[in-house]
């Protein structure tokens, strides 16, 4: 009996020590990261943008990233004059936080400065809104909202049934009839949008032209003919990879060609 108690105590002690070690070590790591990040910010403030980029890249090379890190890398590149790289990192930041005003503003500003401008015909209003919703959806939040609505809907279905009083039960059933079915409809549509968005994001890889001017070739060969030319900052859809040297890309789903991998910054 005594032996058993001693065993229990020793296991408990081990767990406590482990938790403390991990938390202290973790805290140290976080402190180190925080100070590095602040160092990057400070270099930026001192107009030492190249150094800031280097520090931020050190953070990027760890297993963890953040919206702020990508955003700040984008800003630093913009200051250096590398518009393509800036757009690439702002786009990365937008993936983590799709509806952030700062990153949206910076991207708009950068797009105005692009050499390649394609003015597309205005789509139907409903398609325009839907596209905007898709681009700005935060999948994490969306999942939580749908989950909450799902939970509420279940409650609305169950609630009247747990009342013994039949008159209250009837009143509740009548009162909740439309809201609960409306909620089901809303959840269904939200699920469709979520499915479409995740499907779009999983099946479409994009990249940004990071060189001043690149020639898009007819085939993955250096001496192949040039189909069209793209300038820094243009966004292309990556269709496939060839020989670890070439990307097959499409520009506005219209023009298709091959670009060397190092000339594209993958988002």
């Amino acid at each position, binding site marked *: 009996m005594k032996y058993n108690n001693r065993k229990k105590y020793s296991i408990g002690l081990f767990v406590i020590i482990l938790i403390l070690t991990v938390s202290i070590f973790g805290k140290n790591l976080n402190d180190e990261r925080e100070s590095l990040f602040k160092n990057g910010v400070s270099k930026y403030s001192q107009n030492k943008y190249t150094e800031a980029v280097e520090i931020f890249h050190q953070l990027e090379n760890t297993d963890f990233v953040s919206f702020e890190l990508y955003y700040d890398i984008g800003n630093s590149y913009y200051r250096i004059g590398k518009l393509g790289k800036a757009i690439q990192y702002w786009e990365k930041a937008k993936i983590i936080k799709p509806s952030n005003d700062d990153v949206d*503003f910076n991207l708009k500003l950068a797009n105005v400065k692009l050499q390649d401008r394609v003015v597309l015909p205005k789509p139907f209003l409903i398609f325009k809104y839907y596209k905007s919703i898709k681009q700005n959806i935060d999948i*994490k939040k969306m999942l939580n909202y749908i989950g909450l609505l799902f939970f509420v809907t*279940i409650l609305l279905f169950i609630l009247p049934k747990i009342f013994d009083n039949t008159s209250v039960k009837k009143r509740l059933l009548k009162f909740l009839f439309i809201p609960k079915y409306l909620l089901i409809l809303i959840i269904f549509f939200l699920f469709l949008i979520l499915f479409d968005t995740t499907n779009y994001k999983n099946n479409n890889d994009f990249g940004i032209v990071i060189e001043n001017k690149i020639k898009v070739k007819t085939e993955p060969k250096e001496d192949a003919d040039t189909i069209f030319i793209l300038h820094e900052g243009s966004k292309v859809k990556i269709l496939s990879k060839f020989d670890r040297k070439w990307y097959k890309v499409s520009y506005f789903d219209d023009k298709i060609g091959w670009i060397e991998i190092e000339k594209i910054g993958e988002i």
Partner: protein
Amino acid sequence: MLKKITISLVLFTVIIFAKPTVNVTVDRKNVDLRTPIRLTIQFNDFKDYPKYNLDLGSDFQVVGGPSQSSNFSWVNGKTTSTKKAIYQIVAKRKGNLTIPSLDFKYKGKNYKTNQINIQVSDRMHRNSSSANSKNIRKQRKNNNNSQIFIEPICKKTSVYLGESLVISYRLFTRVSIVNYNIPMVTSISGFMIDKQERVENPKVKMQTINGIEYKTADLFNLVLTPTEIGKLEIPMQKFRIELENAGGGDPFDSFFNFSRNKVINTIAPAKNISVLRLPNDEPKTFTGAVGNFQLSAKLSDSEIESNKAVTLQIIVVGEGNFKNFTFPKPKFHSQLQVFEPKMKENISVKNNKIVGNKTWEFVIIPEEKGHYKIPPIKFTYYDLRKKRYVTLTKSNLVLEVTQNKHLLEERMKNMTREEVELLNKDIRYLHLNEENLESKYYSAIKDFRNYLFFILGIILIFVYIIYSLYMSYILNNPLLIRRQKAFAVAENEINQLPDETVIAFKKISNIFNKYLADKLNLQSGELYLKEITEYYQNKKIDEKLLEKIELTWRNIEEKKFAPNLVSEKELDNIKVQIIDIMKKIEKIK
């Protein structure tokens, strides 16, 4: 009216003075088994068509006709009437055959025509060699058709691979032509058909062959490119020609509108061509041009602002195979954006040669200011006169590009007001702290924490299902409800006891009774102490509790006979004891 009187007069004259004759003719005497022969029976000065039986024997059969026609002629005051019956006949076998004479009786008089000999051979092969075409020519000469024939005219019988070859089909005729149809050539083995054209308004010339003077005209041009080396044959071509009626000089023909044109098929013989291989020492810039050419190149502007378009025009003029070569794209400076060239060609056939020009227009957009040299423009062809490859070069083309001052203004034209305003703004400032760190490999879809509400919802459903099942089980077991609710009911009733001791005692004894009965699933009237003790002994409860139950039971039973004697204090004691017992019983599982 005058016309009617004239006709009546002529008919009357014919009837009174004419002497009827008949003769039979054929359009050809040498035929093959499949070729139809036109057999014409001409009745001269007959008042009407006589009755006759056309017996062709066993060697021929009628395949068409009779088509009948009549005409009148009046020459030098002599009037003749002609009636024709025309049949299409074919021979049934080859050999020297005879069309038998025609015998018939007309107005009591016998008429008989001569026999006609026909030489019938095997079927002729249309896609045969030149030997057959010689036969056809021979046959044509033997026939009356020698008055008209078509020859393929080609200046060369030996060409290089890829060199264009023009075949002109020339008509030789001694009769007047009303119309003609040209053949539609779809493919020729060993050749690529570049062009086939009907000569509009053919020029008629005179040419004497073997002492006979013919009118000649080129009707049809065929432009071919050999694709194989060796001896190739351009097969014979069939032309359909409509001749003017032979009796065209007769004024009655036009007068009575009786004239009919004759349609014949004329076959132009096959032509043999030798195709040679080009020498192997071709330069890299050679793209297949064979002939004799000249090159010119020019820029639409030699000075231009950046991001504006300029055109480089390259023209190849001369004679040769324009259809079969391209222009090698020069290697332009990387700062020059060059689009795929627009190609135009203007070629025609003249004097059995292909002449014209071919133009390539490259649109060039210089992106930056600078001095750009257009690389030498080279064009190589195989010169048929010099019998070697010749490279033409055009160099010294220079493009001066100046800064485009209006570029920003032009770009701003396409911007919205909001975008123009953005041009003067700066990016938003840095974010100073990292709020939420996220794994690089994080996927919201795969993170179970994002499904917590879903999990809660599903748990809620399960809880509800279990609750519903439990409730339905309870509702189907009233004894269980009694047993479970016994304490709550009893406690509630004890708390609501009246102040009067007698009534309160009676009630409290009933409450205790009922509680124990509910617990034992019995009716309160059927309950005895023995049953209670046995029940709880089986449950193996504390002996003290069992004693307490027995004591309390007996105490109540005794006082039932004299409830008036129960004091308030005793009642309170009983109440406390009962509640205590009930609580202890409730703890028993």
